[in-house]
């Protein structure tokens, strides 16, 4: 199909402002010009086994779509697990809903959608030969990716402090027929525990939030140090005229700052949502805080009576493995985006040769697509 597509005349002249040497060939016959460029790794000519730039691009795109089809099938195994488990244990979903923060999830959705916009814009810039626009768009995409992971790190940390982990992490595994032998004993244990600790859900949550604040504070300091070191490195590389290294290190700075902003921003959002319990240390605000807390306790009192259903751990196993696999895809995307940013700044991409930008863009949109389904499935439906 792509071979049959008429290859447009792809003279290399004029379209690319960054490669002035192309103009030497401006009047040359297009095919004669390509005849002496056989290096498949050279961005100056399409690989010798392709008829034209267009065929090379279409072939690469077809390959990328085949990979994306594989990715869809790969993720579908987890969506199947979700569907089967949910259809068997709908009560677990109703209960688990309260542990996932919708504002954080919605914010992350918006961040990923925006990163998809900047990526699509970057492809547009690459097609039009706008080197700086392309580099900027990739940088924005990279920053959004780090922001997403920052919010995710807050969510994971808070759950870890609430001891909400995957099945079997915090309780004895109940498997192999023993599960239904002593269900009442299990329940009374939990009730006794809850009564002994005499903590409401809101109190436990605010304690976990304070602990999360401490942990994320350390992570933020780490991110800030990494950002500073990388910034100094980028400055040195700029002095040494090592532009590739400079852009790579600048990408690292963007990632570290994005993580920091994401983690601290979601911390602020969480304090906002919980009536700022961490502010309880300030004694002048104590009376006001006490009032807010009682209101919260009254609200949470009803839900606190509820006993976690059996198999709540499995919900979080599914939650962690689905969001975790998605986060691994984000990380892989960030590595590729850094590589792309270095190449874009170097001026590798021309209106004839922008395949890598387009293909990474397709991958990035697919990662976004997976999140478009994960957000309602995990955060909203309960």
């Amino acid at each position, binding site marked *: 199909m792509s071979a049959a597509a008429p290859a447009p005349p792809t003279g290399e002249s004029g*379209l690319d402002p960054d490669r002035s040497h192309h103009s030497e060939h401006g009047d040359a016959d297009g095919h004669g010009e390509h005849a002496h460029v056989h290096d498949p790794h050279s961005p100056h000519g399409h690989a010798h086994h392709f008829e034209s730039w267009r065929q090379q691009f279409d072939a690469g795109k077809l390959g990328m779509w085949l990979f994306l089809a594989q990715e869809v099938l790969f993720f579908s195994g987890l969506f199947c697990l979700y569907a089967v488990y949910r259809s068997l244990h709908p009560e677990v979903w109703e209960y688990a809903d309260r542990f996932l923060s919708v504002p954080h999830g919605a914010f992350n959705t918006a961040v990923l959608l925006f990163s998809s916009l900047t990526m699509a814009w970057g492809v547009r810039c690459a097609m039009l030969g706008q080197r700086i626009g392309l580099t900027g768009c990739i940088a924005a995409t990279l920053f959004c990716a780090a922001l997403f992971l920052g919010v995710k790190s807050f969510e994971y940390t808070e759950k870890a402090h609430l001891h909400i982990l995957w099945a079997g992490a915090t309780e004895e595994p109940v498997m192999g027929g023993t599960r239904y032998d002593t269900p009442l004993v299990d329940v009374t244990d939990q009730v006794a525990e809850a009564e002994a600790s005499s903590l409401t859900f809101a109190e436990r949550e605010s304690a976990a939030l304070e602990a999360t604040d401490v942990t994320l504070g350390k992570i933020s300091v780490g991110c800030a140090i990494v950002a500073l070191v990388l910034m100094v490195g980028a400055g040195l590389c700029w002095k040494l005229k090592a532009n590739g290294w400079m852009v790579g290190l600048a990408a690292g700075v963007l990632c570290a700052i994005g993580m920091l902003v994401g983690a601290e921003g979601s911390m602020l959002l969480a304090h906002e949502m919980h009536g700022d319990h961490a502010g309880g240390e300030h004694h002048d605000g104590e009376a006001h805080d006490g009032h807010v807390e009682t209101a919260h306790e009254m609200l949470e009192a009803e839900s606190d009576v509820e006993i976690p259903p059996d198999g709540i751990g499995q919900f979080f196993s599914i939650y962690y493995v689905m969001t975790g696999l998605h986060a691994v895809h984000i990380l892989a995307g960030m590595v590729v985006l850094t590589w792309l940013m270095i190449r874009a700044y170097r001026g590798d991409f021309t209106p004839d040769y922008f395949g890598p930008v387009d293909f990474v863009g397709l991958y990035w949109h697919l990662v976004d697509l997976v999140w478009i389904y994960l957000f309602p499935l995990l955060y909203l439906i309960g």
Partner: protein
Amino acid sequence: MASHAEPSPLDPHLVTGHGHDHNPIAHVMPKWMLIAVFSALLALTAATVYFASFELGNYEVLVAMSIATVKAVLVATFFMHLKYDNPLNAAILLFSLIFVGLFIGLSILDTQSYRGDVDEWRANQASEAAGD
């Protein structure tokens, strides 16, 4: 675009092309279209969060998944260029989605067909445990 170098008058694409948003080998997405798609995606996200605040019962999954699918179609059609691409690429995606549908649909069908037996077994186990 502003950063375009002065086009060579001999360049065939710029002479016969459709103005400045032109690429020799692929379709270029107009700016307004990118922004419109992004705005629609944001609006749909707000809508799905809004609808989730109601008690819709069994329709909750249906509504959320319909909105997510509209968003997915927008991303695939415009951000992923499928509208302007070789239809083969869209066919690859559609075929993979058909197989995902078969996979999940048949798994659910299978799970539901054994559900009565499982519930019964569970009830027996619980009553035995209570009796002991």
